[in-house]
């Protein structure tokens, strides 16, 4: 494999604490190395910013609901569907891009890893088919477990070992990466048209509360010692006044200790916090609760969060929170897609227009930015758009421009149609903080890598780590002052190295790299009861046979298996 040396760039690497110093980065055999031979190809990064490849901690990029969004919204292709220069396949779609476009766009922005945030286990094969077809970036997927019948039955009796054994079995069947929880209990209730809006609402029939499900799953997650923590989309998403439930949920992590060999320090990752930080009693007196929520997050060290920034676009919301999508459809009356998945979960899809002229949307925009700007520890707060729910991931460069320049975001804030009302209901106007390039590297590289249990190989530029490197046309000494210039630089990486291969050059895709699918194989002691329960559920309640449930190896030809051993736990 070829050798490279990246010279004279301004390096930002939280792993080594490098804050923009000029440093050469050497690449050999897909890894970052101390030095290379004199025959190494020289990449001149003078006046450029060099960072590790970015990691997406939470996005809906592959699977049944994403695809439902694609094909039930032909209009989404009208916004942006032209082939860009480079060796690419046809690209299509804006808020729900096709798999080819998804891979290319992430790469163009300097990303090398993306976590598919919600994989319904019964549809795991579909998720992996799409991941297989997504070029360049490495990916993994989180199976959704918060409304799973096995889990609820075991946790009702406090059977942590059985829960863990089932999780281990399920991750092997689905090639899953971790424990995802979406509206715990609420989605099962939705199968009867109901919901759980607080963490103490009992789940119909199963007679367990969302709080018990989350506490149990956190415990099981640490019992197994998985690379990632429990990853939760909380109850009561998107409703005014939900911040109390949010804080109550976060409090469940108090006293729970992380136990793993991956350097992960959190026991709960609370995703798209913007949607959960609302005060008020209705859409009229709706206001930001970012301060209340972030005050708690800042002092509680064993949780991580991501933002869920609203980008003010027309987009397509999609979530395993089935009752929420029905509720949203009742608000905007746009087309409603729903699928309930036997014994496991549900999902809904509804298009949504975040109109800057509507004060609620503008306030949501403020809240997302406030969360990032109020975060005291950038290693625990990651930037997402909960793609495509708050906006497409392709808008990251614009979100960065709002976060990194008070001027750019104030221009937007002050020109909202209802600017006074929006400013009055939010904190943003009084925040002066500008995220630095180093903090950005924490929030998009080192932080998510650590949170996902991938810090050994991802998120930094230390010798021995993967040679996933993004080089941007940004001179930190002359940081661009206008939004479009920032956006252009972050949206078109000067170079992207993936495993030591140049995949993007001058914003153009030049190589497909060799993407890998990550999944976690957790070994547990043999558990006859769980295997008996699995057999019985498949015989009696599933609509597929147990032997037709697993995802075969051929779906992940370049799999990277992370093994954990909980047999001695």
């Amino acid at each position, binding site marked *: 494999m070829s050798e490279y040396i990246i010279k004279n760039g301004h390096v930002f690497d939280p792993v080594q604490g490098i804050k923009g110093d000029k440093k050469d980065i050497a690449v050999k055999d897909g890894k970052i190395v101390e030095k290379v031979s004199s025959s190494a190809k020289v990449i001149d990064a003078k006046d450029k910013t060099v960072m590790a490849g970015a990691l997406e901690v939470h996005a809906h990029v592959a699977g049944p609901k994403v695809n439902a969004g694609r*094909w039930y919204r032909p209009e989404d292709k009208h916004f942006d569907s032209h*082939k860009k220069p480079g060796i690419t396949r046809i690209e299509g779609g804006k808020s729900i891009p096709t798999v080819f476009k998804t891979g290319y766009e992430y790469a163009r922005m300097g990303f090398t890893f993306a976590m598919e945030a919600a994989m319904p286990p019964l549809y795991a094969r579909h998720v992996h088919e799409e991941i297989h077809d997504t070029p360049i970036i490495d990916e993994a997927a989180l199976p959704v477990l918060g409304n799973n019948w096995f889990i609820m039955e075991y946790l009702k009796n406090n059977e942590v070992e059985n829960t863990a054994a089932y999780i281990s079995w399920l991750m092997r069947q689905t090639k899953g990466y971790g424990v995802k929880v979406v509206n715990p209990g609420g989605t099962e209730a939705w199968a*009867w048209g109901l919901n759980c809006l607080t963490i103490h609402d009992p789940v119909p029939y199963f007679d367990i509360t969302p709080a018990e499900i989350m506490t149990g799953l956190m415990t099981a997650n640490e019992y197994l010692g998985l690379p990632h923590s429990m990853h939760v989309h909380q109850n009561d998403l998107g409703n005014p006044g939900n911040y109390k439930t949010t804080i109550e949920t976060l409090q469940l992590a108090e006293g729970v200790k992380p136990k793993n060999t991956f350097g992960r320090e959190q026991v709960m990752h609370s995703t798209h916090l913007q949607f959960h930080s609302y005060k008020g009693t209705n859409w009229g007196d709706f206001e930001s609760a970012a301060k209340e929520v972030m005050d708690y997050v800042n002092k509680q060290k064993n949780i991580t969060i991501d933002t869920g920034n609203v980008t003010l676009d027309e987009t397509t919301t999609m979530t395993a929170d089935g009752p929420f999508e029905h509720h949203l459809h009742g608000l905007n009356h746009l*087309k409603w897609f729903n699928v309930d998945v036997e014994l496991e979960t549900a999902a809904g899809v509804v298009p949504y227009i975040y109109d800057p002229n509507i004060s609620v949307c503008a306030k949501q925009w403020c809240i997302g930015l406030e969360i990032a700007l109020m975060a005291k520890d950038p290693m625990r707060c990651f930037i997402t758009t909960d793609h495509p729910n708050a906006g497409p991931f392709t808008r990251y460069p614009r979100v960065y421009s709002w976060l990194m320049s008070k001027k750019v975001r104030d221009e937007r804030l002050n020109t909202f149609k209802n600017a006074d009302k929006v400013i009055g209901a939010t904190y943003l106007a009084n925040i002066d903080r500008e995220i630095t390039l180093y903090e950005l590297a924490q929030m998009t590289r080192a932080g998510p890598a650590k949170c996902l249990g991938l810090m050994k190989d991802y998120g930094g530029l230390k010798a021995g780590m993967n040679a996933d490197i993004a080089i941007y046309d940004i001179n930190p000494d002359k940081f661009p002052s206008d939004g479009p210039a920032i956006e252009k630089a972050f949206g078109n990486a000067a170079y992207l190295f993936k495993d030591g291969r140049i995949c993007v050059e001058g914003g153009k895709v030049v190589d497909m790299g060799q993407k890998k699918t990550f999944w976690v194989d957790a070994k547990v002691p043999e558990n006859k009861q769980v295997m008996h329960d699995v057999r019985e559920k498949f015989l009696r309640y599933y*609509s597929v046979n147990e032997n037709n449930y697993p995802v075969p190896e051929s779906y992940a030809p370049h799999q990277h298996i992370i093994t954990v051993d909980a047999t001695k736990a």
Partner: protein
Amino acid sequence: MPKDVTDVICPFCGTLCDDVVVTVSDDNKTILSVKNACAIGAEKFNHQRLPGRVKRPRMRQPDGTYKEVSYDEAIDWTAKMLVKSRKTLMYGWASTSCQAMSIGHEIAEKVGGIVDNCATVCHGSSLIAIEDVGVPSCTLGEVKNRADRVIFWGCNPAHAHPRHMSRYSIFPRGFFTVKGHKGRKIYCVDCRYTDTAKCADTFIQVQQGFDYELLDAFRTAARGEALPDTVGGVPKEKIYEVVEELKGGRFGIIFFGMGLTHTMGRNHNIDEAICLTRDMNDFTKFVIMAMRGHWNVTGSGQVLGWQYGFPYAVDLSRRDQARHQTGETTSVDLLNRNEVEACFYIATDPGAHFPINAMISSSKKPTVTIDPHINCTTEISDVHIPVAMVGVEVGGCAYRMDNVPIETRKVVEPPEGMLTDEEVLTKINNRVDELLAKGGA
């Protein structure tokens, strides 16, 4: 010693039963018996050993007869046809694996093909309706475990999806439906008294062509508004009564088929059925599902969806952009307007299903058909490339009518030397690359 292959997936209809047991001969070459499958499904497996199966490609001769040729020759002819034609209809895909479709799409992108599947003459109108109003649905296991109100509207699973009723919709006992059939109320809405209607508690005979009106009346009744004395031949008392029963259920589902998609109103019928489902969610839980026909037509829609963003009729002839417009990029319309220069059919039989004028137009163009069997389409083709039967002689991914993906199984060896869809398409793809590198055919 003959042996049993278990958990076999039946490659016939969208029900995709996965509990079939096939007994095969010791040498893995012959299917001896098939258990659990319906009559049609069993026949599909039994086809494998029928004498007279074509085992090598055939090419039409000037005198109209077929001559056996090598795979290489047939593949070369096909690749040249694809490269030469400026616009090729690449139709079918519903009876092959998703992996094969992926390769086919790669070819289509290079040669400027139009990829379409049999939704175009089947549930295409449902897909248009879903593009208009969305769709609240569920997996079939949800129906088995929860549904206590089941409506079959314009579909006849007793004939078209024979095991649907016993596996999912009428008879099974599920978690919350321990009484099975007795705990469910079954409705059948049709213009004829079908065999499915015989299983129903209530049969509602709608006057032919009045489904839209009747669906609309159901919505009206659900809102408690006034109705005329009869709608579509159904007395208003009956409509009010049924709607009240539906509201009284805990979990209702509408299954619909060609009786809605291809009668007067077409996609508008489905629009209305989906809106009725949506309205019913104000009172109880309600979902709706299309009874997809071919076993993997859903898969074709899925793969096209994630690769190009449209479920069928995807025009790649511009090579840098995918387009989809019903009436413009749909197969029958393209053929009727004589807009394509060549036809490439795979894993479906348009000759048996397309309108006669479309097939007359097709028969005048260079045509290649890839299919395990002789069918109406192979008989108007210049080249017929036989392949292994997917789901019998080779595995591959398929999507059930509720979009659940299931990996089909290989149960027996294909005839000696016979290639699979994936192998043939890969070879065509490589040959197309060679030709394009040389600057064309």
